[in-house]
């Protein structure tokens, strides 16, 4: 009897221990990834911008800012790399669904949606015991096997296309779809809430997901994928006119002020130049004040959207503090690409509006200057303000120049040694996020996933860097590559080569000589081509380009989107009105005058 009692007690104790173990809180950190959409490099206060972003700036003050963080020139391609740790040409986003060149169509890696050759970090984290939540933009596929639920997210509230009205599903930027599709927890949504505003609702949903999932003590991976400040520029009523006349002075003044502050902060090194104003943009002082004020109003809306997003991030962080999870949450804030300078080619052609946006604007949107910012309206900042947002770099979204591919990155949270440090040494890439998150979660990337071979991770984990053990995850011999919409680039150490399509690249269009070489440490704005001074370095990096093409499944197309748009749209030197310019009439008058005077030929 005594032995029996002892055995019973032992078994009972073991059961209690086992139960207790099963209920023990998983101590791995939560991961909160916040992605702004089309936010420029220099917009945030912590990066030298005049925007009031106290919440994000506080994250920077508590953590680390990085100056050399790289993304793709556009959103879907960045998101594919972010979630997979693999180059977008492998992950199915060789180009955007609408822009896949004819000679790449049907080829693996150019599906136009995130293919199944890759596995997402969300899937792996979910399998590894994390709750996985997505609130916001997806842009990686529309079909049931492509939506967030199918790609690793346990809970989702997702805008499937790349942009939409921020107050409704009234239109999508993908012009063949008149209504923007959304999903919630894997189901397509019939109607959005009546009081929907993208940034607010995405925050609400993320808080809801975390709140409903936290009872079991598992950590979460939250991907808060804001659509702000992507166009159309829309913001709640109280925020509409906060900066109505703030930008009446025009872009040049704002750009110079930002550049000065960036130097003071140490975001940009002393002695470097900022990019020249693009040749097709006027000096702002050349414009009449009415044009400036209306243009500046759009940038004021863009600023309001960014500051509203900052406020909403603050609401989420306050919630995390309230439930005691803030100190155990790694927070990563990035932008997905450079600022949106949409329409630059069409502006060159005198026809503002790309096909999709023009269609949307014509059919679904109101653009009166006193109406922009409201539901159903359509406004974007355009290239002049986009270049301001990209200070000090050249160009903006859609280009492989630094203005298109360099983005703000702030990391804060447990295990991050920083306290406001600005890291100017590390060369980081959005593909690094997936391996970083996996390492933090104690997981590894598999060679196969659910019976299919998956592409290996190309990014590098930052965990050691975040702990302060190293300044960069990359060695001097490491390089990074880019290709999108015809633009090509390689960065290795301080050096970068790039090849830009017309009309931004060379006019004679020779493959070899049109590659330009820059020393980014001295010339981050890519203003001084050093190809002739250092052809050996250029050759070295061009060899890496060949490697990149091979390794990352890049198809160098004969069809270049930007060039084709440019050639189709370039205007005549003069409008073809009758008698304008009146050269013929003037010649006639001169001839008649000579005849009357008996003059000669």
């Amino acid at each position, binding site marked *: 009897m005594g032995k029996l009692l002892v055995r019973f007690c032992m078994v009972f104790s073991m059961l209690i221990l086992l139960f207790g173990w099963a209920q023990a809180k998983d101590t791995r950190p939560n991961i909160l990834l916040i992605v702004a959409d089309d936010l420029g490099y220099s917009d945030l206060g912590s990066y030298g911008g005049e925007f009031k972003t106290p919440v994000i700036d506080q994250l920077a003050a508590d953590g680390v800012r990085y100056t050399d963080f790289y993304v793709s020139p556009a959103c879907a391609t960045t998101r594919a790399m972010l979630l997979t740790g693999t180059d977008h040409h492998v992950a199915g986003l060789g180009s955007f669904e609408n822009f896949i060149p004819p000679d790449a169509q049907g080829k693996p890696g150019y599906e136009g949606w995130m293919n199944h050759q890759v596995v997402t970090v969300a899937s792996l984290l979910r399998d590894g015991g994390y709750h996985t939540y997505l609130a916001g933009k997806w842009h990686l596929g529309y079909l049931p096997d492509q939506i967030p639920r199918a790609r690793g997210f346990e809970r989702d509230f997702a805008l499937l296309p790349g942009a939409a009205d921020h107050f409704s599903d009234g239109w999508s930027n993908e012009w063949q779809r008149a209504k923007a599709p959304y999903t919630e927890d894997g189901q397509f949504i019939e109607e959005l809430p009546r009081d929907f505003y993208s940034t607010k609702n995405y925050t609400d949903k993320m808080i809801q997901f975390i709140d409903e999932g936290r009872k079991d003590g598992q950590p979460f991976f939250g991907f808060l994928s804001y659509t702000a400040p992507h166009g159309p520029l829309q913001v709640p009523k109280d925020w509409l006119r906060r900066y109505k006349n703030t930008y009446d002075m025009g872009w040049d003044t704002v750009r110079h002020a930002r550049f000065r502050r960036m130097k003071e902060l140490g975001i940009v090194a002393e002695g470097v130049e900022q990019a020249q104003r693009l040749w097709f943009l006027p000096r702002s002082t050349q414009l009449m*004040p009415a044009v400036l*004020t209306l243009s500046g109003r759009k940038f004021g809306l863009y600023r309001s959207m960014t500051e509203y997003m900052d406020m909403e991030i603050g609401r989420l962080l306050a919630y995390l503090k309230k439930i005691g999870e803030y100190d155990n949450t790694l927070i990563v804030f990035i932008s997905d690409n450079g600022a949106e300078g949409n329409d630059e080619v069409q502006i060159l052609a005198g026809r503002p509006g790309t096909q999709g946006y023009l269609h949307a604007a014509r059919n679904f949107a109101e653009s009166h200057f006193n109406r922009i910012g409201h539901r159903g309206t359509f406004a974007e900042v355009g290239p002049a303000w986009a270049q301001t947002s990209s200070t000090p770099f050249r160009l903006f979204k859609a280009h492989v120049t630094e203005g298109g591919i360099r983005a703000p990155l702030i990391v804060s949270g447990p295990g991050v040694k920083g306290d406001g440090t600005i890291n100017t040494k590390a060369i980081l890439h959005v593909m690094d996020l997936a391996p970083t998150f996996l390492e933090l979660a104690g997981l590894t990337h598999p060679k196969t996933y659910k019976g299919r071979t998956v592409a290996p991770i190309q990014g590098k984990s930052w965990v050691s860097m975040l702990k302060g053990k190293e300044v960069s995850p990359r060695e001097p011999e490491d390089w990074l590559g880019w290709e999108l919409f015809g633009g090509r680039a390689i960065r290795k150490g301080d050096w970068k080569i790039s090849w830009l399509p017309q009309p931004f690249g060379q006019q004679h269009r020779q493959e070899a000589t049109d590659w330009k070489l820059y020393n980014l440490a001295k010339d981050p704005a890519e203003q001084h081509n050093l190809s002739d001074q250092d052809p050996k370095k250029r050759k070295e990096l061009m060899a890496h380009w060949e490697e990149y093409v091979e390794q990352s499944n890049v198809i160098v197309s004969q069809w270049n989107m930007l060039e084709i748009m440019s050639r189709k749209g370039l205007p005549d030197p003069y409008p073809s009105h009758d008698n304008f310019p009146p050269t013929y009439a003037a010649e006639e008058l001169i001839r008649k005058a000579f005849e009357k005077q008996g003059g000669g030929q």
Partner: protein
Amino acid sequence: MVLTPRSLGILVGITVWCLLISFDRTAQALDDGARAYWKTMADTNVVSFQYLKFNVDSTGSQVFDPSVGIYPNSETDLDLFVLTYGRQFSLLGQSAMITGAIYGGDINAEFDGDPFNPKSSTRFRQTANGFGDPNVGLVVNLLGAPSIDNFYDMANYEPSLTVDVATLLTIPIGQYKNDKAINIGQNRWYGRIALPVVAYFGSYAPLYRTSLEVTPSVWLYDKNDNYLGEELKNDPLYQLEAHLTHDLTRTFFASLDFTWRKGFKSEINGDDAGEKLDLKTLGFTVDYGINDNASLRFSYHSNFIDNDEMDADMLRIQFTYGWNELLENVKVLEHH
């Protein structure tokens, strides 16, 4: 109270005039009209031509003193045109406008009894035609509408609430015969001071504009020292005009209109002549913008709120043309 026979004509004239006074505003005709105090760029000129048709039937004793046993049973028809001009300008940094208006046409009135022969019970008829008293006006903004001097100001003009002061003076040079009970002119100076208030709702952009416009005002009159050989005086007339306007399309708006007039009690040679006026009218306006410069407006107003003793109906068709030299030049540039 003694009402001389001649007072009858005055009172008929009052009723007529109460409808006519509204001609006195800027580019609008009846009352001030909807959106009369909206601002545009300085140096903008507006010319308006309108045709109005009134019909006033009085069947009771409301406006006639029953003690004298006269039941007017009057019927008055008016066919009038109004030509107005206005020019927006800057005054001390605020939006301002000067206006001028002339009007004229025909009035046909008939009623029971003869003001010149009290014993007669025959139906009396009289007509008048010619020009009325022209007027000049000045509107100055007090609050909410700084002068729109250029495109920059125009681009930034998004009013929420405007308060103006509007003055008007009528010059007694119109058609007037002192031996007639019915005239278009009044043979006296008179004027108005008003405090128009406009509250704007929605975006200040075509298709989205809504406004609530309330204009309290008072009319003040000099005496007419030769009304059928006698002296006519009137108390001030208090007027409240309101419009609720809304854009139905980018080029088309509608307005619900209300006007309330009270006062204007008459004295002839120091004796009361009839009761105070108390007239409420309700109506609507629709306005179609033909192009950037021109618009066409139609209004209908009636006193059906309290029409037990009098029916007053008004129809108006108005064509307005506006231009601004700067804007026109920009159009030329745009064309090229």
